[in-house]
């Protein structure tokens, strides 16, 4: 059995020269979080976006969903129920998007992503709930049938009926989202729900679903804004820049979150 978190700076010896600065002080890389995820997995992207928004540096490695690595003994040792992604900081491990996002937020910089007004908070959570139940399953079906399935098996035949049903199923929630966006962000101020829908719509866009976004003017305008939205961490980065391309997904490449010099 191998330790899937044994990569990046964690794989270096504690006394390795490049773990310390010129004066022997510990470098910030010793505190970098480690992420195990998959570039075509919405929940992995949510955590990456949250980290970038909060100025948290993350070293990433792939758990290959096309080979069902999330069901292997090595991954189950980290996440007994196979929930992805997994995040580690020192000896603390948390898995799943719900847990990892709030942990990153708690460690991060800048404003809180959760609205501080109770009514807006409820609105945010309602739309995250809608995203999880009405959008994410369809996005995951499209990813599986069109990208992940063929990655694991060259002879994989997409279930066209499932693909058509997923595309059709997205119409109602995307229409609702289009009607919902009346100001700069989904619930007014930038919040977790913008991160969730960024992950969904990004994956849709890389697998040829741009028309579903472009045909809805408010969704299109919001998504354009998101693509250039500067991180709230104060660092000169745009979270969306860390999102994988279709080629990245197919080549199982996942970005580290690098925030520049503090």
């Amino acid at each position, binding site marked *: 059995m191998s330790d899937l978190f044994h990569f990046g700076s964690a794989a270096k010896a504690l006394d390795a020269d490049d773990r310390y600065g010129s004066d022997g002080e510990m470098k910030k890389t010793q505190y970098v979080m480690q992420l195990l995820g998959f570039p075509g997995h919405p929940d992995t992207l949510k955590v990456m976006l949250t980290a970038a928004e909060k100025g948290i540096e993350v070293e990433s490695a792939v758990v290959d969903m096309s080979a069902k690595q999330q069901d292997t003994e090595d991954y189950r040792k980290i996440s007994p*129920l196979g929930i992805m992604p997994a995040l580690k900081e020192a000896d603390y491990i948390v*898995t799943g998007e719900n*847990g990892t996002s709030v*942990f990153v937020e*708690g460690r991060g910089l800048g404003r809180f992503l*959760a609205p*501080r007004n109770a009514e807006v908070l409820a609105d945010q959570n309602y739309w995250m709930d809608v995203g999880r139940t009405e959008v994410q399953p369809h996005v995951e079906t499209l990813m599986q049938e069109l990208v992940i399935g063929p990655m694991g098996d060259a002879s994989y035949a997409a279930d066209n009926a499932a693909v058509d049903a997923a595309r059709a199923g997205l119409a109602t929630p995307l229409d609702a989202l289009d009607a919902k966006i009346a100001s700069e962000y989904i619930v007014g101020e930038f919040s977790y729900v913008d991160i969730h829908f960024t992950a969904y719509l990004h994956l849709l866009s890389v697998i040829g679903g741009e028309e579903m976004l472009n045909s809805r003017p408010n969704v299109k305008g919001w998504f354009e804004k998101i693509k250039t939205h500067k991180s709230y961490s104060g660092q000169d980065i745009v979270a969306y820049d860390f999102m994988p391309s279709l080629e990245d997904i197919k080549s199982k490449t996942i970005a580290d979150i690098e925030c520049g010099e503090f």
Partner: protein
Amino acid sequence: MFGLFKKKNKAETGMKLRGFPGDLSTVKCLIMAGEKQVKLEIELLDTQAGEQDQAEYRALSPFGKHPYLQEGDAVAIGAEAGLAYLDTRGKGFMNPKKAQHFGHQNYWWQVSEIVAASVESLVKAAAFGSDVAADAEAIIETNLNAFDSALTGKKFIVGDYSHADVHWTAVAHFLVLAGKQDMIDSRPNTKAWYDKVKQRPSYASLPSLEDIKQKQLKAA
């Protein structure tokens, strides 16, 4: 469930909840209302009869999500929104202050969602004789094993009583109503935890199986 926010200063009256006693999300909100001592005006949404899919309700909740919580002009639809809204009332917040506990709280919330449909189906089978998915009990057993292991040496799931306990109290209550208390009793950590949470005042007025059969929903 997410974050810190300003406390609401409205009087603790006039909050309405529309839900169903055999609905796990409704029961979670009843537990939270009990914990935060929020008085609720209750209205039945008969999800067993499909009222959540009827035009009148869909006009309020376009995706049929429930329960529906309303206070003046403010609404919170579904458990995720309802629990966060209710948590802004009363003393303190239930989200842990420590980031590590917050992360694990939300992890266990996510796991509770994995068993939700299975647990609900067992209760509906007990109350209304409806079918249960063949793998329902296996799903619950697998996740309860992980839950029991995580409770080792702990009073509550993460640190103090938190949202995670609210989610799993609802799950445990439904298992008891469904005649599956052995699933709890056979796991010593889960049993000890359940014996603690069921002593809390918020547990006292949760729906009985008879309430579910009679479609009676009572406020805490």
